[in-house]
C-alpha cells in the first residue's frame, strides 16, 4: 500500500488510516458506507459500499401485477415518489399503447413539480445541517409540510402516494385544491429569497462549498451523472426538454445550468430549479384542461409481449424504468435506471485529494437517496 518514494528530509512518512464513513452517521443520507483511506487529512482512496437498503424491489415486481408494482415504485426514491410512479406508468403505457388524457397529463405535471419542490427542500435542509446550519432544515420541512398536505388532500398519503396510475391519475382535484396550491405558491416564492439570504449567500457557507468537489463537464458525462449534478457542470440536458413527456413542451421553464460544477453550484442549481417548478405549476394551474382523468385501461393489465423504456426528469436526475412483458399480468422484468446509483459512482474519483471535512460537503451536494441506489 505504501508506494511512497524514499522520504526526503522535508517529507514525513505518515501512516495511512482506514476510516468508515457510515453506515450509521448523522450526515450520510441513508445507509451508505464509504471506506476511506486517509493520509493525514487527505483522502487517498474511497470505496462506496451499498446494499444496506436492498429490498429486492425489481424482483418483487415480477410477482405482482402492474397496478401493484406502482405501490412498490413509490418506495424506490422515497423522497420523490410521484416521479417514480410516473416513470413506471409511462413505461407500462408504452407497452399498452395507451395515452393518458390531457387533464391527467396536466395533473401529472403538477404533481411532479410539487414533488420536485418537496425533494429539493429536503436537500436544502439536510445540506444545511451537514454544513452546520441547523435552522434552514426546519424552515424547509415547514414548507414541505404544506406540500405534503396538498398531496394528502388529493391522494390520501403523505409520502407514498400510489396516485399516478396506468392511463392517468387516481383522483381528480377540485377548485379548493387549486386554490390551496396557489396559496402555497404565493407563500413559497418569498421563502426562496429567504433561503438564499440565510444559506446560499452566507459567507461561511460559500467558504465551505465554493471550489470544493469540482466535477468537470467531461467527467460528469463520463460517469453518467444526470439532473442538477450534471447541469451544474455545464451541459444543459434535461429530460423534460430533451424528450418531453406529459405535455412538458407546453409549459415555460428554464433549464438551470452553472459553470464551475462545485458543491455550491450543485446546491444552488436545485434552489433555482425550485423557482422554475413554481413557474411550471402556475402555468399548469392557469391552464388546467377539463376532461377525464383516467383513460380506458382494462382492469387486469396484460400488455402484449415486448419491452419498453420510459424516462422522466426526477428530482435527482434522469429516472428510467425498463419493462419487459411476456403477455402475462405481471411484468417479466422491471429494471429501474436510478439516477442516484450512477451519481454515487463518481465518489470514488471525486473524493481523491479532498480533505475529510470536505467529504461530507461533497456527499451532501450529490443528493443521493439510498432507496434508489439499493432498490
Amino acid at each position, binding site marked *: 500500500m505504501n508506494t511512497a518514494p524514499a522520504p526526503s528530509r522535508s517529507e514525513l512518512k505518515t501512516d495511512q*488510516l482506514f*476510516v468508515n*464513513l457510515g453506515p450509521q*452517521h*448523522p*450526515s450520510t443520507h441513508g445507509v451508505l458506507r464509504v471506506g476511506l483511506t486517509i493520509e493525514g487529512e487527505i483522502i487517498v482512496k474511497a470505496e462506496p459500499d451499498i446494499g444496506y437498503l436492498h429490498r429486492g424491489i425489481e424482483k418483487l415486481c415480477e410477482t405482482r401485477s402492474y397496478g401493484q408494482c406502482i405501490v412498490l415504485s413509490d418506495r424506490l426514491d422515497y423522497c420523490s415518489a410521484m416521479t417514480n410512479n410516473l416513470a413506471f406508468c409511462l413505461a407500462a403505457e408504452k407497452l399498452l399503447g395507451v395515452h393518458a388524457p390531457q387533464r391527467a397529463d396536466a395533473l401529472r405535471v403538477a404533481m411532479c413539480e410539487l414533488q420536485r419542490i418537496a425533494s429539493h427542500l429536503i436537500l436544502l435542509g439536510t445540506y*444545511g*445541517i*451537514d*454544513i*452546520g*446550519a*441547523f*435552522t434552514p432544515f*426546519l*424552515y424547509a420541512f*415547514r414548507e414541505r409540510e*404544506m406540500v405534503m*398536505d396538498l398531496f394528502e388532500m388529493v391522494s390520501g398519503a403523505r409520502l407514498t402516494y400510489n396516485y399516478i396510475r396506468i392511463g392517468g391519475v387516481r383522483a381528480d382535484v377540485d377548485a379548493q385544491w387549486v386554490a390551496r396550491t396557489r*396559496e*402555497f405558491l*404565493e*407563500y413559497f416564492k418569498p421563502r426562496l429569497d429567504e433561503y438564499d439570504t*440565510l*444559506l446560499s449567500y*452566507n459567507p*461561511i*457557507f460559500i*467558504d*465551505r462549498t465554493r471550489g470544493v468537489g469540482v466535477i468537470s463537464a467531461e467527467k460528469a458525462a463520463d460517469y453518467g451523472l444526470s439532473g442538477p449534478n450534471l447541469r451544474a457542470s455545464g451541459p444543459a440536458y434535461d429530460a423534460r426538454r430533451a424528450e418531453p413527456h406529459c405535455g412538458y413542451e407546453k409549459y415555460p421553464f428554464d433549464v438551470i445550468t452553472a459553470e464551475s460544477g462545485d458543491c455550491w453550484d450543485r446546491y444552488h442549481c436545485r434552489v433555482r430549479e425550485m423557482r422554475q417548478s413554481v413557474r411550471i405549476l402556475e402555468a399548469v394551474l392557469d391552464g388546467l384542461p377539463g376532461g377525464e382523468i383516467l383513460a380506458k385501461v382494462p382492469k387486469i393489465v396484460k400488455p402484449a409481449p415486448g419491452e419498453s423504456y420510459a424516462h422522466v426528469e426526477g428530482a435527482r436526475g434522469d429516472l428510467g424504468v425498463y419493462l419487459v412483458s411476456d403477455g402475462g399480468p405481471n411484468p417479466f422484468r422491471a429494471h429501474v435506471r436510478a439516477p442516484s446509483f450512477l451519481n454515487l459512482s463518481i465518489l470514488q474519483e471525486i473524493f481523491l485529494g479532498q*480533505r*475529510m*471535512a*470536505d*467529504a*461530507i460537503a461533497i456527499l451532501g451536494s450529490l443528493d443521493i437517496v439510498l432507496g434508489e441506489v439499493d432498490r
Partner: protein
Amino acid sequence: MSETEKTPSSSAAKSAALLPEPVFTEGPWVLLPHRAWPTEMWASPWKLPRYRRGAMMLAGLLLLGTGAALLIGEIAPWADMLHARLMLAMATFGLPPPAVMCVWGALQIALLIGIFILAPVVIVWWERKISAHIQSRFGPMRTGGFHGWLQTAADGLKLLLKENITPQHADSWVHRLAPAVALVPALVAFAPVSFGQELSAADIDIGTLYIFAMTGVSVLGIMMAGWASANKYSLLGGLRSAAQLVSYELPRTFAVVPVLMFAGSLNLSQIVAAQQGYWGEGYGFALLPRWFIFYPVVGQLSFIIFLIASIAETNRTPFDIPEAESELVSGFHTEYSGIKFSLFFMAEYGAMLLSCLLMASFFLGGGSAPLPFLRFIPSWAWFLSKAVVLVFCFLWFRWTFPRMRVDRLMDFCWKFLLPWSFANIAFAGLYLLL
C-alpha cells in the same frame, strides 16, 4: 374531553349508522379539525389566543424583572448593615477582623459559585427556547409545567445518574482531572468582574490580566481530555480545539488593549468608571453614554473583534468544529459521560457568560445606564441586562450560521482578525494623540 365534528349533511342519519362506535385513547385531548397553515397563522398572528398569551407572558416577565431589580435595589444597603452586624457578631465571639473578612469572602464566593452553577441551567433553557422559536416551534413545554423550565434540571439529573465510564487504556488520573482543570479556571476568572458599583468579589488592580490568564489555563483541561481518552480521533479533536482556543486568545486580548489605553488601568472597576458620564452633558443634554463601543471606529472594531474571538473561545458555532456531531473526527469530550461531561458543558456556558460579562464591562459601560433619567434602575440590573442581550447574540449566531472549516477558521484568526486588531491599536493610539 374530545371534540368531534359531525357532517351536517342530509345523509347524516345514514352516515351515523355507518360510523363505527368510538374507542378513544386515554387522557384529555382535543382534535384540531382545521389544519392551519403558516399562511393563515402569520397573516394575523394576534388572532391566535396562544400568541396573545405568549406576548403577555413576555411583557409580564420583563415588568417582573424590572420590579424585582428595583425592589432588590431598595434593600441593597442592607448588605452594608449585614456586614456591620457580622463584624459585631464576630467581635462578640472574640474573633479578629480578618476572620470576618474570611466569612464575608466565603459568602461572596458562595454567591459567585451559585451564579456560575445557575447560569448554564438558565442559559441552556433559554437557548432551547430561542432556537425553537427561531425554527417556528416551541421547545421544552412539559417538564415543570410552565414552558419546561425544569428541563435543564431534568437533563442534569439524567447526566448525574449516568454511568461514569473511564476507558480502559486511558490515563485514569488525567481523565478524571481534565474536566476540573477546564472548569475551575473559568469559575475563578469570575472574581474580578464588577457587577455594579462596588460589587466585585475581588477588586484587584490587574483584573483584566488575571481573567485572561485564567481562561488560558482551561485550554490545558481540553488538551488533557483529548490525551486521556486513548482515542486517536478524540486526541485529534482535542488538539484541534486547543489550537483554536490558543489562536483566538491573541485577537481577543489585543482587542482589549485600546480599552486599556483609554481607561488607563487594568482594574475592571476603573475601566467601568472611565465609561461613566455622557457626551453632550457640557451642553446641557446627554446625547450618548461614554461607553467605549461608541468611540469612533476604535470602539466598534474592538467590540466586533472581541465578540468574534469570544465566540471562537467558547467553541460556539460558527467555530464549533470540536463539538460538531456531523463531522467525522469526534471532539475531545466523546469519551466522557455523566457528571464529567456536564462539567465540560458547564465550563463552556460559564465561559460564555464570562465573555458576555466582560464585553458588558469593557465596551458597554458595566453598570451605567444608557440615559441619565434611567438611573433609578440599579447598576447591577443594567449590567446583567447588557450581559443578557449579549448572551442572546451568542445564541442567535449559533442558530443562524453554518460551521467554518478548521483551516479556514485558523486562517480567519491569523490572517484577518489579528492584523486588524493590531491596526485597531494603531487607531487607538492615533485617537489618543488627537
